[in-house]
């Protein structure tokens, strides 16, 4: 290493230095926000518009994938739940009817830990305003069957109540009684909702994590998705659009700092290639 040029030595730095810098850059903006302005994208505006155009009493199917494994990937979740349970009723003079289900087995954990509290704290009445069907196995098959039988796909809800005993489920038979579908998850479910719900003309919006953004953006550009919150930045945009800045806005500055640092790391790594000359480098990692 003593004979290497300065540029070549840039490629041999201890990786732990980068880990520490990343940790510090992640923490600082939370303590001292930078306040970098964020413009709101058209996907997020369309997401909000699709829900805002609904009326009080309209039925929504919601894919409940906001779970402990996904909290970090779906920072816009709290804003969405607050919008549905508090802001929408205030602005539209009444509540929606929301039927939630989980296609993943961890869905109920997120439901009982966080999501249910949004409804309870806003004074929603279970069985009248909202129903949680729980984890329904079968993934695409279950989502397809749900479109043909919302109140028949399972005999009882998550709490063991019969569908016949739940007041709001009596009038919800199939996709024709549903005004919109919202998917809040970090998996393939939007693909299946697009095939079996959006194809039947039901408006569909998705809140998903960054790694899936390129995939769901293709559905959005084709008009299959009517709105998309697909990244942490989009979640921050949504919070700003609703006027309730929270966790996502707080993490937007961290996004800026860490992205710049990532670009710097790539530049340093490539400068070392120049420093070692144009001969072929055997990939040392």
């Amino acid at each position, binding site marked *: 290493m003593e004979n290497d040029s300065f540029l070549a030595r840039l490629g041999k730095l201890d990786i732990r230095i980068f880990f520490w810098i990343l940790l510090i850059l992640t923490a600082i903006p939370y303590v001292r926000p930078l306040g*970098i302005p964020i413009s709101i994208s058209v996907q997020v505006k369309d997401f909000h518009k699709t829900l805002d155009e609904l009326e009080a009493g309209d039925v929504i199917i919601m894919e409940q994938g906001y779970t402990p494994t996904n909290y970090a990937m779906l920072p816009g979740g709290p804003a969405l739940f607050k919008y549905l349970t508090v802001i929408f009723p205030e602005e539209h003079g009444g509540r929606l009817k929301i039927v939630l289900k989980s296609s993943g087995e961890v869905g109920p954990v997120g439901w009982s830990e966080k999501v249910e509290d949004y409804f309870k704290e806003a004074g929603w009445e279970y069985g009248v305003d909202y129903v949680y069907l729980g984890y329904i*196995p079968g993934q695409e098959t279950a989502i397809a069957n749900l479109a043909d039988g919302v109140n028949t796909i399972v005999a009882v809800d998550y709490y063991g109540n019969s569908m016949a005993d739940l007041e709001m489920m009596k009038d919800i038979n199939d996709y024709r009684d549903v005004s919109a579908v919202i998917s809040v998850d970090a998996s393939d479910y939007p693909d299946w909702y697009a095939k079996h719900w959006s194809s039947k003309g039901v408006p569909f919006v998705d809140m998903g994590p960054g790694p899936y953004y390129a995939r769901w953006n*293709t559905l959005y550009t084709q008009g299959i998705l009517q709105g998309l919150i697909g990244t942490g*930045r989009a979640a*921050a945009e949504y919070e700003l659009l609703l006027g309730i800045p929270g966790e996502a806005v707080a993490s937007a500055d961290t996004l800026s700092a860490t992205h710049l640092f990532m670009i710097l790391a790539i530049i340093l790594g490539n400068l070392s*290639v120049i420093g070692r000359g144009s001969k072929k480098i055997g990939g040392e990692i």
Partner: protein
Amino acid sequence: MSWIKSKGPTSIIVFIIGLVVLLAYFIDVPVLSSTSSLFQDWAIILVGFTVMLGLVNSVLVHSKNVQRRKEDQWQYSILFLVVLTIHIVSGLIDIFNLNHPVYVWLSEKVYGPLSGASYSTLGFWIISAGYRALRIKNREAAVLIITAVIVMLGNAPVGSLIWTGFPGLKNWLLDVPISAATRSTFIGAGVAGILLGIRVIFGYEKKFLGGA
């Protein structure tokens, strides 16, 4: 009993069910649609059983590790089995509300934070990969890295401060070339899925039956 184990009956069942579900999609006949829905309801129930199957398999694997005192593994297998048992038992005690204190504590105070922690390590892996592996060794690598940098700057709010064109450039990349590539991947996967489905229905694909 040997006829149950033979592949003939299974292939016939697969053919009938596959054909009914496939035809119900294209032909609007009430009997066909209701039969197709029934078959799909059965599939949902069967998938529920596979979760149990995964659980049983995990228990068997870790029990063997403990039994054979597998080096550097058997201690973790014991921990796994103990926590699994406690979680299941505490969940079953309050099966409809899942409010048993032990179950709630394990889910909210252990599983949740551990999941978040394991996801958070991704950032460190990515920075390590960016520094050590993303090298411009040829034209394709150059295109990859430049695209990645543009998307990062377009996504981060600070990118707009550096140059106002980054968000627009990022959107164009995502809406045009990346969408085109993603769609072609989906179309390819879809066509492959159709071919595989036809092979399974008509008995040409036998691997799922346990054969060659």
